């Protein structure tokens, strides 16, 4: 703790805090142009200079920690003059085209030019021709660029992609891109203080001040990131975020045009829907649903007695129940922030690259800021994230139980509670079966030395594994008996919420109503069923996200049809608005309108509330590790390409990723197919016809088969042995 003064006020700094951070925390204003709170200081704008008593010259506040007894002044005539000069410099040759600039009205250059009273320009230099660049979702205009470096910093530090970089050289300096590394997330757009890095799609479509801005949560994956829907004329025009503190992936930022545009209420379809519920044997839904609607379905189940079916959430529920039987806690104890502060990470059973972008962002930050060692135990080596992953441990498909049991054996010191299980482990056998070598395990142990904040990230593969029960119990043990914090990544947006709220069943033969799932009677937010429903950007409600936070969803754009709540009300589960249920979900009794949804001055998120873990006093014995089934021949892995998560992202016009089968040269050879072939294969009874492409960076004999277009997530193991047939014409 350091005691010092800012403008005569006594303040304290924590270890690692800079003068600027303390000032912001204390509500003292220091102007900046290049400072990005969520990353390390760029120190390029020099606006944040302050005076320190007894020190000659001006001191930069953004990257200087205070010293004991320092007396800082943040505002003086000298500082004003220097800051004014910096604004003059920024305006040298900055095109005076604010009238047609996208950023006008929300431009930091505009704002600070005004703030520092730049009425006349003393400085001039010969201008230079600069070419605009189009880099997919973003467009770069070097003439507008002030080289604040926020975009390169966010790309490198926060996203972990190292796509954007500075081509330095005096006045000619500019931003360049290594496009192969760019994941089209648009973080660079969000942090640009001027109009240099602009959304290609949004550009020149609207003035900032004409847009209606609604805070909400992203509907695409379980991170449920904070965002703003910005709309005009009944359409969402763009998505923005609190870029200083939070991030979005490409799906969140560009996948917003999935609303249901139905204009009228179809009364007869509505009546049929009410009848369908009455006669339903099953109501099938997926986890792209709010807590409140899931609660409504559960209430209807209680009333009407149908089977409530959501296999994705049911599997997750079972997994967490088994987890709780050994961890004695109903929930895992880690979150994304822990992950980004971690120094040792083991990920198992998931695609770090694409399953949950914020998990990958957080790992990249852990690597950058904490020199984290990241081990990915996964059959596929994801080459594009080799800058994040320190060690790929490629296990045999199906051997996750063996892998995790060895991890548990290495890291759990007190094995007394499961002595028989640990005694039964035969490393020679397990290493052989899983194809994980003892050297790899030794290295893992070696790298763990002196690490202080380890994390274990559990992916979807193991939740849907045939040995999920035992695996969940092993994970529970690790949480209980080691310093590891655990995250069990919920596979879909609200899998966790649904699993906590609903009493779920297996499907049985009989008439089924589907909600966003094709069935005998289908309710569809995509307008593809028997009755229209609002999409998730047209609803109020809440999700429980990966951080176990109950977060707020507001309607970004109006909806004109019927809602589930209308059906429920007709069936005797009555409420005026669906958000009346928010306080009744079984968590905290807080009304929807009373939920927090903001960031404070230094970036602490206040989004809803954290769901508390419930104690569990079970003491269940683990089974011995089971022998493995073999996966031979062509194996496909159900994994979506970046930015694609569901049918809701599928048709978003800015998300242009194809649904092709992608494999290595080795896979092509083994499957006797070649790049460009049209191929046919069956996974879980579903026939896929796909264009096949060889990715030369891939290795091994497992190919990626995207499933985002399917309306409900398969609840089976993500790897499947398939027979591939070429159907070229």
């Amino acid at each position, binding site marked *: 703790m350091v005691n010092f003064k800012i403008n005569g006020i006594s303040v304290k700094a924590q270890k*690692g805090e800079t003068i600027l951070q303390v000032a912001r925390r204390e509500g003292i204003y220091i102007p900046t*142009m290049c400072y990005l709170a969520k990353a*390390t*200081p760029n*120190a*390029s*704008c*020099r*606006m944040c*200079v302050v005076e*320190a008593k007894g*020190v*000659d*010259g*001006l*001191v930069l506040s953004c*990257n*200087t*920690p*205070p*010293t*004991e007894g*320092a007396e800082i002044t943040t505002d003086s005539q000298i500082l004003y003059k*220097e800051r004014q*000069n*910096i604004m003059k*410099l*920024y305006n*040298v040759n900055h095109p005076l085209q604010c009238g047609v600039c996208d950023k006008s009205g929300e431009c930091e250059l505009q704002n600070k030019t005004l703030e520092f009273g730049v009425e006349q320009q*003393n*400085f*001039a*230099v*010969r201008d230079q021709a600069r070419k605009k660049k189009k880099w997919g979702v973003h467009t770069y205009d070097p003439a507008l660029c*002030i*080289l604040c*470096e926020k975009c390169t*910093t966010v790309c*490198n*530090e926060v996203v972990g992609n*190292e796509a954007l970089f*500075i081509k*330095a*050289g*005096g*006045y*000619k*300096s500019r931003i360049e891109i290594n496009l192969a590394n760019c994941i089209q997330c648009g973080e660079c757009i969000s942090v640009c203080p001027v109009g240099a890095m602009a959304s290609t799609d949004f550009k020149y479509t609207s003035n900032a001040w004409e847009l209606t801005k609604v805070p909400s949560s992203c509907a695409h994956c379980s991170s449920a990131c904070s965002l703003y829907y910005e709309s005009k004329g009944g359409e969402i025009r763009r998505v923005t975020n609190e870029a200083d503190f939070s991030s979005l992936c490409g799906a969140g930022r560009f996948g917003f045009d999935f609303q249901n545009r139905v204009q009228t209420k179809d009364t007869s379809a509505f009546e049929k829907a009410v009848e369908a519920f009455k006669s339903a044997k099953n109501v099938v839904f997926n986890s792209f649903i709010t807590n409140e609607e899931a609660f409504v379905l559960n209430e209807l189940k209680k009333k009407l007695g149908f089977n409530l079916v959501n296999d994705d959430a049911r599997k997750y529920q079972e997994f967490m129940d088994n987890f709780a039987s050994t961890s004695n806690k109903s929930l895992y104890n880690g979150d994304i922030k822990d992950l980004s502060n971690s*120094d040792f990470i083991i990920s198992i059973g998931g695609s770090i690259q694409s399953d949950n972008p914020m998990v990958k962002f957080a790992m990249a930050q852990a690597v*950058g*800021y*904490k*020199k984290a*060692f990241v081990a990915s135990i996964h059959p596929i080596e994801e080459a594009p994230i*080799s*800058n994040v*992953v*320190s*060690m790929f441990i490629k296990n045999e498909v199906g051997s996750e139980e063996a892998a995790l049991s060895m991890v548990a054996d290495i890291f759990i010191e007190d094995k007394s509670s499961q002595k028989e299980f640990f005694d039964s482990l035969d490393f020679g056998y397990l290493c052989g079966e899983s194809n994980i070598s003892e050297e790899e395990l030794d290295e893992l142990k070696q790298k763990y030395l*002196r690490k202080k904040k380890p994390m274990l990230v559990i992916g979807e593969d193991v939740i849907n594994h045939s040995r999920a029960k035992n695996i969940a119990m092993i994970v529970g043990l690790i949480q209980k008996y080691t310093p590891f914090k655990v995250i069990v990544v919920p596979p879909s947006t609200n899998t966790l919420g649904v699993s906590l709220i609903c009493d779920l069943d297996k499907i049985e033969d009989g008439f089924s109503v589907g909600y966003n799932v094709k069935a005998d009677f289908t309710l569809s937010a995509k307008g593809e069923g028997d009755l229209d429903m609002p999409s998730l950007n047209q609803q109020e409600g809440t999700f429980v996200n990966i951080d176990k936070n109950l977060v707020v969803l507001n309607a970004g754009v109006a909806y004109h049809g019927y809602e589930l709540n209308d059906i429920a009300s007709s069936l005797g589960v009555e409420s005026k608005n669906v958000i009346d249920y928010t306080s009744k979900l079984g968590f905290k009794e807080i009304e929807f309108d009373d939920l927090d949804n903001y960031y404070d001055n230094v970036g602490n998120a206040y989004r809803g509330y954290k769901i508390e873990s419930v104690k569990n006093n079970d003491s269940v014995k683990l089974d011995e590790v089971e022998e493995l089934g073999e996966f031979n021949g062509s194996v496909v892995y159900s994994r979506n390409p970046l930015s694609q998560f569901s049918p809701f992202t599928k048709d978003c016009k800015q998300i242009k990723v194809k649904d092709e089968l992608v494999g290595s040269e080795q896979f092509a050879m083994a499957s006797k197919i070649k790049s460009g072939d049209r191929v046919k294969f069956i996974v879980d009874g579903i026939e896929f016809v796909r264009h096949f492409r060889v990715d030369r960076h891939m290795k091994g004999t497992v190919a990626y088969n995207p499933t985002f277009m399917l309306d409900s997530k398969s609840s089976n193991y993500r790897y499947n042995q398939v027979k591939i047939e070429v159907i070229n014409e």
Partner: protein
Amino acid sequence: MSKVYFSTWRGEFINNVDKPQEEWEESAYNLPAQYDNHRTSKAFIGWDGVSLFDEDVDVIRLAMEYAAQYQEYSEACGRCAPGRWGGRILYDSLDKIARGEGEKADLDHLKEIAKSMQITSKCEIGKTVPNPILDLMHHFEDTFLDCIENKKPSKHYYDEVGYIAKITAPCTDACPAHVDIPGYIEGVRDLRFDDSLKATRQTMPLAHVCGRVCPHPCEDACRRTNLDEPVSIMELKRLGADYETDHGFGFFHPLNKKNPIDKKVAVIGAGPAGLTTAYYLAAEGVKVDVYEELPVLGGEVAVGVPEYRMPIGKYNQDIECVKDMGVNFITNSKINADDMRRFEKEYDATMIATGTRISKKVRCNNERPEIDGYWSAIEMLDQINLWDKYGIGEAVDLTGKTVVCVGGGFTSMDVVRCAIRANAKKVYMIYRRDEKTIIRNTTYEEYHEAVEEGVEFLFHSAVNAMNDEDDVLKSLLIDKFELVPDPNGGRDQLVKIDGASYTIETDFLIPAVSQSADLALLPEEWEIEMTSWGTIKTNGKDYMTSRKGIFASGDCEYGPMTIVNAVGQAKRASSVISRFIQNGGEITLTDNEIMEDHLHRLRVYNKKEKVTGWLPGLVRQNSEVLDAEVRRDNNKEVNLGFTQDEAIDEANRCMRCYYIAMVAT
């Protein structure tokens, strides 16, 4: 001392304007008045002032050309607002005046922007570029006004004048390998560890090594010292190297390997100098064969520096990086004079980088190598390291033995600490001078770690005689000395204290006072010129020996010195060799190298300078070190390196003191 017409360099003000040349006052600084042996300098301009050596210099254009340099360097760099725009305004406005189109208001704007740059720029380059420009504008105001008022171009605006510029920094200048230190620290700060490593490797291929065991002369020239404490420069180098290794990336080479040029160079010795020569020559497309006497690569860093200081796994990464550039290594190959004669015919050039691998005697009575227990430091460390690192030979076990080492430098520290690890009963270090001096000659950490591990240091002591029984060492007679001030004000003298001598029973005497070079490989008829202390003589600039095409670098040239010194020499030599073999045997230096030498003579670091614009009192980070109890009986790396938080904090202490210097010829 340099004869100048006008100078403001480093606070000195000399104005010989209107004085006849023979009355010119001289400058106290080693200014580069003579650029090289065929070019004189007209002017020198840099961060700390400007010097004119000639009355005829066009000062406006000089200022303008200096400002123009600011636009050239990626280090200088457009990475802050005052620097990026300010630098360009300086250049444009000065050019406008020099063209004869300037106005009086331009002078005001120049002064204003210069002041803003001095106060608010991100780094020293932006802060200092205005300095000499303001000096010229102030002292030659009439010249500027003449051009402005009469709308005429400056006197040599359209003439051809050579301007040769060089970017430097106090730390870079002090580093014998001239590593771009602010560059690699910037990489750490930006979390671009790949960039950090590339910045290091531009001039120093041994990033793992010099991130661990470099005595870091750079830190003695760190400007941060003027404010509080030097930046922990050496350890920050590890970050980039560890990043590459930890993630198992391919090697981040800072330069692309050029196509083969059908030239061959032989390098004798695969130590730091040999590796460095090979790396940079291979990058130039030269076929390089490196001959190594030992079965292993790496030279003294491999078989001299112990595992606990320099883990071989890490060093091997550096060696692999050199291999990756396409270098051919031939081990177990001791080169003799016949080989050398053959090499001279077969290769376009030969580099001798054989180091100094003969331990010198301590010069005591009865010092006979045949006495059992007399063990040279080189032989002892060879045996320990070959076993510990490669499993070659046999382990050294000193259980129950007493070991006495005579030394005071890094090698002797390695000897005593290895002796502790070999389970010796008692380990003494005998040193003629005091604690302060031993720390100065090694490092604070090295000395204290040895003490913690249980080494007993006997200061102001020297071995008088070895006592043996039947050629088996039994004890040593030790003389005690005291420091007596020189009545004439010179250095204090060591004087033996009569009657204070004593005896230590011991099993081993290990001389580690110094090493000399084994140069039996030099054919006698070549009559290669040697230095008075038995090393190969070169001019210390191009590293060619007295025989054309035969070069020498590292310890066999300089005498036992540091790794970084060997790297620096070899880097320079490789550059010279690459031109030598392509330009028909001509020895040349690049402008960059000539400037490097000029600036080094001039000294870039000014320890009297008052640093402004930084908050003093930010403490230097110290990395965690294994406890003595945990480390003393094994080879675990002692220094654990920075955590990322510590590294980023430490990188933020760097003031990025890049400077531009320029000579007009």
